[in-house]
């Protein structure tokens, strides 16, 4: 009896071992680009999104009039050329483009898309197109946006969410809520997509430029940072985000790592009026916070070198970088002196974190501020509520990315009295005057004014800059022509990528 049972058990173990062995190594699917991603897709209508991490899910499917280069440069896409004057922008459109549902792309489709964004059901994007007072369809391939105010950054805005083109038929029927319908090189395959986990994109055979369709399929897998690293290590992913905690292991393994310039991170001081934290109304206190932050140590230890520390918004090399800015870098003695001069021993303010990345940013900074008696009380908020929290008026300050690339957008989002992220409606007349003047000038003449505006915002402690955080990306040897996307964590361009 015992023998029989023992034999049965042994047989079971052998069968299981065979099953494991039969499973075999995880082979790379031919002509498929498999990507690890940290967040699931939210809404398929791009006009209802703003979080840059969601761009990856939209990128294969949607295109705008204006394309985006690796450093954010403007490229022709659905518009072959454009001409901007003080009062308008006129676009010449491609005449060989169709949406995934067969609808023809033309000037009327563009007009319907601008109307969708401006409908106001998603204010953050509607505000981005506020400068467009009306849209004039000249003919099928020509369209003019009439402007009611200066719009120096409008073309950059059109590269992303608010400028991506959705089939007007899908907008009308609301089918875009379920499946994305754009003009992009790939289409979402809803049957093979598992919501929240895996998104499969297949080739758009009607695409107007087949030369950019380097792979037949794109598979975006929503994974934790550990799974991305392990999935990449085991050969199940061609591209994966690399969390700073894994950088030493990735470097030791000799993986190819891309580090496109990431979003600039700063401790945003919202309560400049001192409404909920009176101490923050004093510029000396805000500057003390800046002196208390050891940016170099933060970049080296916390971000494993994937960061360029900075006390101002624009890095060296940028046309808006200031050489004349006061030294606001780490100086604990000076920070304590300023606190003493202001007669403040210490104070507490609430801030928030939505995930591990923000915990990683907040906790070391909280530790540094503690050294001058400032307690940063970190509260947990749900994922996707970052901008709601920032604009709620409940928090005096928070570490947030500056995703706005152009100084005009930076001003509109953070500094203007009616800015979305200026919940206490603080007004700095000098900065307002500079921004309004620069917005009416051409790019070259406006540059010194934008530089001055950025310098003043830093020196007056409206934003305590930490630096530019580079979100490293691992790329396997099989994947070629992968380019990182600047100012967009872990984002790459899918166009032109091939897999061997």
């Amino acid at each position, binding site marked *: 009896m015992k023998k029989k049972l023992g034999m049965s058990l042994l047989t*079971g173990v052998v069968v299981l071992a065979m099953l494991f062995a039969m499973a075999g190594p*995880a082979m790379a699917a031919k002509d498929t680009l498999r990507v690890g991603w940290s967040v699931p897709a939210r809404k398929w209508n791009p006009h209802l999104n703003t979080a840059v991490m969601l761009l990856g899910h939209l990128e294969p499917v949607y295109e705008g009039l204006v394309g985006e280069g690796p450093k954010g440069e403007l490229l022709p896409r659905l518009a072959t050329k454009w001409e901007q004057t003080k009062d308008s922008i006129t676009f010449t459109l491609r005449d060989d483009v169709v949406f995934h549902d067969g609808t023809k792309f033309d000037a009327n489709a563009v007009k319907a898309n601008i109307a969708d964004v401006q409908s106001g059901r998603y204010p953050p994007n509607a505000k981005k197109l506020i400068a467009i007072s009306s849209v004039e369809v000249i003919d099928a391939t020509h369209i003019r946006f009439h402007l009611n105010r200066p719009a120096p950054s409008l073309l950059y805005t059109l590269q992303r969410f608010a400028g991506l083109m959705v089939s007007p038929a899908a907008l009308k029927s609301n089918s875009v809520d379920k499946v994305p319908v754009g003009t992009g090189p790939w289409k979402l395959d809803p049957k093979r997509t598992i919501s929240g986990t895996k998104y499969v994109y297949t080739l758009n055979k009607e695409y107007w430029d087949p030369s950019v369709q380097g792979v037949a399929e794109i598979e975006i897998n929503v*994974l934790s940072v550990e799974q991305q690293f*392990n999935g990449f290590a085991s050969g199940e992913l061609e591209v994966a985000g690399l969390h700073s905690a894994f950088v030493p292991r990735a470097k030791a393994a000799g993986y190819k790592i891309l580090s496109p310039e990431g979003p600039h991170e700063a401790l945003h001081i919202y309560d400049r009026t001192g409404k909920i934290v009176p101490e923050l109304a004093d510029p000396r206190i805000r500057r003390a916070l800046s002196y208390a932050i050891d940016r170099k140590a933060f970049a080296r230890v916390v971000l494993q070198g994937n960061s360029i520390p900075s006390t101002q918004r624009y890095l060296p090399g940028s046309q808006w970088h200031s050489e004349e800015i006061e030294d606001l870098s780490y100086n604990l003695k000076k920070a304590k002196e300023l606190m003493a001069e202001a007669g403040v021993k210490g104070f507490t303010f609430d801030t928030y974190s939505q995930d591990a990345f923000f915990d990683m940013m907040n906790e070391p900074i909280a530790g540094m501020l503690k050294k001058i008696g400032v307690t940063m009380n970190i509260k947990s908020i749900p994922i996707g509520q970052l901008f709601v929290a920032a604009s709620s008026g409940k928090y005096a300050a928070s570490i947030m990315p500056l995703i706005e690339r152009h100084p005009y957008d930076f001003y509109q989002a953070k500094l203007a009295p009616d800015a979305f992220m200026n919940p206490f409606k603080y007004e700095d007349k000098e900065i307002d005057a500079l921004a309004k003047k620069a917005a009416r000038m051409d790019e070259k003449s406006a540059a010194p004014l934008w530089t001055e505006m950025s310098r003043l915002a830093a020196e007056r402690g409206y934003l305590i800059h930490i630096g530019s955080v580079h979100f490293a990306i691992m790329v396997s040897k099989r994947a070629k022509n992968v380019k990182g996307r600047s100012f967009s964590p872990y984002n790459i361009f899918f166009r032109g990528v091939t897999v061997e």
Partner: protein
Amino acid sequence: MIRLILTRLISSVGIFIALSILIFLLMYLVPGSVAVIILDDAATPENIAKLEAELGLDDPLPTQYARWIVNVSKGDFGTSFLNGRPVRDDIIEKFPVTLWLLIGALVIAVVFGLSVGILASLKPGSLLDRSSVLLVTLGISIPNFWLAVLLSMLFAVKLGWLPVFGYTPITEDPILWFKSMLLPWFSLGIVSSTLIARQMRGAMIEVLNTDYVRAARASGIPEHWVVISNGIKNAMIPVITVIGFQVPVIIGGSLIIELVFATPGLGSLTIQSVLDQDLPIVQAVLMVMASLVILTNLVIDISYGWLNPKMRVL
């Protein structure tokens, strides 16, 4: 027996109603307005007021509960706050994954648990028995998520035999499906199997030392038949309860295990929805999981009564 079934049915319905009320009230435990969560970045005061009116949040709580439970009974769990997708679609998509996970883990738990328990009980105190006790103690002590990480590192990352993450539907590719489920099954099943093994060993030792087993042996019935017909059959009565208890244990464990392997079942959906404060999904998943556990307990109770006549009078 009919009395037992009726009693258990009534108490199950009572538990279900009580749980549904608690699950419904979740919406009111979240700080702030639900409308703010739904609107996200579009949460202007006008939009919030408009949406609150549309959702009927001003109605009395019993009215809101009645409306919700009627919709739930029709399979309408509302729409996701985040992506506007009907929650029912998510449940339909994810439920089979968790069900497969549950079935596979349970099969592993039962097969391994019973085999080890029976083998160990045949010669108490032997090397085999002591080894099995050691294994059982080890199994009970290991948290399933840690076991999952170890298995993943060994079989997926180091050896490359199995995928690190993901899931392939059985209809798409049965072999890939099997590959993607093996590690989650073992991670969940091994710990439960040790509990079953412990119970089976104890029950078998007790039964094999009873007078009627001795009488059976004395009457010349072959040993393997004594073990099967007298030993295993009678020892199974308490073991079935333990197996039943493993259903909620495995469902609970699936929350973490699905996350570890990125398995797109109800567990990972729950965690993601809790993080996103996507309440309709959280409520729907809890309702489905609670129903599954209540139903399992009901079946266990009834089968226990069927196997053990003494239970029928309770």
